[in-house]
């Protein structure tokens, strides 16, 4: 089975138009951006929307810019654009590192940031990266726009706070020029979903960690984060002992399941290892940025 069940197709010309189409067609309608998650599921008939609302024409949602001291990423930004963005590389190189290991260059040409986030695959990379950076998400609906904090955005595997008649329009990350960040992922082969992945962000003040974010992917961490590891870091110097302890806490602060990518112990071990690697690099980067 490789042909989707029949559906009707609508092409949205603006965010408002997309929202009105969503309202008109009800819960059996789905937005399609890059389609790289949705179409494969539709081909296997695991998803059978009655209407697809194409938002690829909404080029006004494809941007990366600074506004109000925040890095703002439009939902229709393609992965390739995030990867190539000098602004992103300057402020949060972790996002570039995460993008480099998402699928392959040709998928990144069409796959979108918003699509990945809304698919909310538990092994998705950007979700962990954004969690570590304390991103918030702007969701548009009939009543206007609302900003959802990271913790409230991911409700569980394949589930987000975006309602059936809403759409994600922007990701916002507060700018912290002295924050160092790094992303580490272990995959079986290039472009594969992670066996485990860790994102680390650190800001130092007077030799002490003033702010820390640890994001984890593919290991069933609540909201893609490890609060225990973060708590262990804040208020302490970024020395080897602290980082190692935090990394070890991260390995415990998640609930990986045994599957074909590996047994539970292996994944916990990887989480600690990858978190440590990310922390070491994030701390070094933070030191340079002071």
């Amino acid at each position, binding site marked *: *089975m*490789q*042909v*989707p*069940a*029949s*559906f*009707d*197709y609508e*092409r949205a010309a603006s965010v408002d138009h997309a929202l009105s189409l969503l309202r008109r067609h009800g819960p059996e309608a789905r937005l399609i951006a*890059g*389609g*790289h998650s949705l*179409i*494969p599921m*539709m*081909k*296997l*008939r695991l998803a059978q929307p009655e209407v*697809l609302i*194409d938002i*690829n024409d909404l080029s006004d949602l494809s941007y990366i810019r600074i506004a109000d001291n925040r890095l703002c990423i439009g939902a229709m930004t393609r992965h390739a654009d995030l990867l190539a963005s000098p602004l992103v590389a300057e402020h949060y190189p972790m996002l570039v590192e995460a993008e480099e290991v998402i*699928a*392959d*260059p*040709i*998928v990144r*040409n*069409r796959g979108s940031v918003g699509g990945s986030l809304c698919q909310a695959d538990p092994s998705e990379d950007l979700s962990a990266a954004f969690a570590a950076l304390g991103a918030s998400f702007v969701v548009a609906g009939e009543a206007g726009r609302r900003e959802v904090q990271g913790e409230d955005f991911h409700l569980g595997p394949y589930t987000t706070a975006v309602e059936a008649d809403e759409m994600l329009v922007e990701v916002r990350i507060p700018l912290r020029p002295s924050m160092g960040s790094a992303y580490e992922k*272990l995959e*079986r*082969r*290039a*472009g*594969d*979903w992670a*066996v485990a992945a860790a994102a680390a962000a650190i800001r130092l003040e007077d030799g002490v960690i003033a702010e820390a974010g640890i994001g984890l992917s593919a290991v069933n961490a609540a909201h893609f984060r490890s609060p225990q590891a973060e708590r262990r870091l804040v208020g302490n110097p970024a020395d080897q002992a602290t980082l190692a302890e935090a990394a070890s806490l991260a390995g415990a602060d998640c609930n990986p399941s045994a*599957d*074909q*990518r*590996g*047994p539970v*112990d*292996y994944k916990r*071990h*990887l989480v600690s*290892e990858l978190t440590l690697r990310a922390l070491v690099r994030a701390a070094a980067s933070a030191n340079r940025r002071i």
Partner: protein
Amino acid sequence: MTKDVRARFTLNGDSVTWTGEARRSLVDAIRDDLGLKGTHLGCEQGECGACTVLVDSVPVRACLMLAVQADGQDVVTIEGLASLAEGDESPQDNNGLHPAQAALLRHRGIQCGFCTPGMAMALAGVAELSCAAPEQDVAGFLSGQLCRCTGYAGILSAGAELAETAGLGGIEQEAMPDAGGDGGESERFVRGRGRYVSDIVLGAMAHAAILRSSHAHARIRRIDLSAAEALAGVHCVLDGRVLAGMVAPFSHMIPGEAAKPLQWWPLAVDAVRFVGEPVVVAVAISREIAEDALDAVKIEYEDLPAVFDAKSALRADAPLLFPEWSTNEMLHMSWSTPSLDRALKESPRRLRRSFESHRITAAPLEGHGTLADFDRLEGRLTVWASAQQPHQLRSVLAEVCGLAETAVRVVAPDIGGGFGNKQHFTREQALVAALAIHLGGPVRWIEDRKESLTSSIHARAQAHDVDVGYDLEGRVLAIRARIVVDLGNPMLYFSGVGPALVAGGSLTGGYAIPQAGVELSCVATNTCPVGAYRGFGQPEAHHVTEQVMNLVADELGMDPADVRRRNLLPDRPRPWIAPSGALIDTGALHGQLELLLEEAGYVRLRKCQEEARKAGRLVGIGLSSLVEGTAPTQHDVAGRFGSWESAKVSVLPDGSVSVVVGTKCQGQSHRSSFAKLAAEALGVQRSRVRVTEGDTDQLPYGMGTWGSRSTVMGGGAVLRAAREVAATMAKLAAEMGGNPSFDQVAAEAWWHTNRLARGTDPGLTSTVTYTPGQTLPPGGSSEKWSNHDETYASHMTAVVVEVHPTTGKVDVLEAVVVSDCGQMIDPEVVKGQLQGGFAQGLGAVLLEEVLYDSQGRPAWEGFSGYSIPQAGDVPQIRVVFRSTPSETEGGFRGVGEAGTIFTPAAMVGAVNDALAPFGIWVDSTRLHPRHLRPLLRKGLQR
């Protein structure tokens, strides 16, 4: 009912207006509605890259974009790629090709051609990108473009050249290789002009889709087809009982009493025995509607207890797949040399160990596919199939469909990779043939990737319990193996029994082990059928033999190279008669091993290893001394696989030469190779020779391509036939007098027979059946050990690996092979086969594994799960040649399977060599990080 949609876009510069259903993908629209077949479908899930096209200059996956989404955009496919380059350089420079296409050709980055168009489109992107970032990592850039044949070496050098030269004013040209009179087999592929089964269009073609069992073992209680049959556009929806009334059953063709009887039909009748077994077929005016019909079928199953591995299936209380057998053991056989027991008992040292070759699958990038048409007036069935053995498929289809062989024509067009997976004669092929007869018109079925990975053919799945006797000098004196083979559901012609017999017969390999014996147990389980995959039993046996050598070395504290020196076959006599009765005719192995050790710098490697160990690195060296049986015969034990090949060579009136061979290319350059042989034998330019394969109407019979046989058997047949024609021409020329030209003789022979001497046979055509005919030992019986191979190639391999303790990942640092495959037609083709086999061998041990959950459901349904190697996963293996011609016609020895046989054995040896200091020893072919890391954790703690 949904409404049709419309898209207007440019396609290779032309404006097109497309109208159709919104669910139609861009690639389906391009291929089926707009007729451009160069863009291929390998997975339809965005995971293989075969469908890559440019949309507004950006490479995208055309299978994940809807056709309607192309509205207003500029689409370029492989057919338009060359003209894209016209702006910046003269296309004549590249023979009318885009630089990416030209580079792929020049660097021989092409075998079966199926991935090639997508690869060229992506490589065109490399050229674009590199202007901005010349350091772009080509392997990373190509990570989404899968190639199953080449092992990426040629593709990566093409990419590197493009990246280096882009923006520097183009690429310096070399002459294109003369590839024969067909315009160059690879050039067709790089232009998107390969023609595979799914590219063939017959008028009013009906499309079949197959509903497969979601239960591992169940009785079928009720099938309700009514809703499916009621859909508009549906021709018919049929279940197994109906089909069983339309065709004769298949049987396994294993003669003798040893194997339990088994018959089966195209679709499951009354019961299903694995997840993926075909249950219902729907035929409709389009694939979409056929799949909609399957969605509307309702089946009630009554679950039965199931069993998913061979050892459990052998237990007395195991659920039975075929209760009438009273066991799951389909076949039990044993044989041994007379003094095996005594030799084991009297050996100074013993070693008892269990080894396993885990279940994998060949995963050719083009899946199976069949198109059949039936002419009711003529009573003739024509079948186009992606099949390695078209003539035997004809025999099987004729039997199953109740037709004379003359009433069946099988055509195998271009094959997008076979690797043994397409050697089998499948239920689906018979199903499509039966449907064409039933409907009296063309019906096609194209396997999708999920079907390919979960319900076509798996491989390996053997466990070997061995008992070895050896002496204190490291000589292995005796080996006994109990081989348990997981057949899966054995409803497959020769199934896993064939590879099992070969494994048993190859156990002693290239070693002079005097006493040997095998006990073979072939077991049915509720999993996908197990059958052929490149190597066919030899990888499993070779893995065991090489690990035995490594263990003996470890036990005695000897160097593994020394143990091999002790055990290798002596250089004389030839043929060497193995315990199995095989007549091994290789060149001298000792010199070949020494050459390997010298080429690899073995002494230096051991020193480097010592240094690395001191620095805490886990580095290991693995050796393999492979003696590979090629061009085999099976002596009545596995059906109808004769040890011969047929060829027909004709010089036509204009002096052009037609060669028809019974082999079937799947990417091994048969056209150019056989053209070269015929050209040399006849004394003409290779460009005047055209080679045809894969059409049963063109040659009475042929054996197809499998078992590393084509050069030996097909090449031998072509040589013999060409020499016969050459002899006739010489005779005619002598009669004509005056030193006539080749063309004059050709014309005279066909058109002016009245001028020839009375009684002269004028026909410049010869059909020969060639067999080397030396497969039986003197006085040997045909049934004792079965598989006596025609000629043996030898390959000595060394690999160096590093195991990363924190992740369990294995990196290959170096790989070198010294290969003796006799006379070579084109060493570059041989290198391509070795590199491609090396890649598949690496994939087998580092990435690939077929897994089932506790309900017998396959864990992977696509390439995102079943990971085959990508461009960045395969280093280049260095190949050194040493050629000892065989005594077959032309002096050839086969080579196609070597890489998949020696690589797993060498890799397991290397990893064990790295980990032995920590008390870790892996006895299976599983070197995946998820398997190694837990062992490492335990080992490193100790």
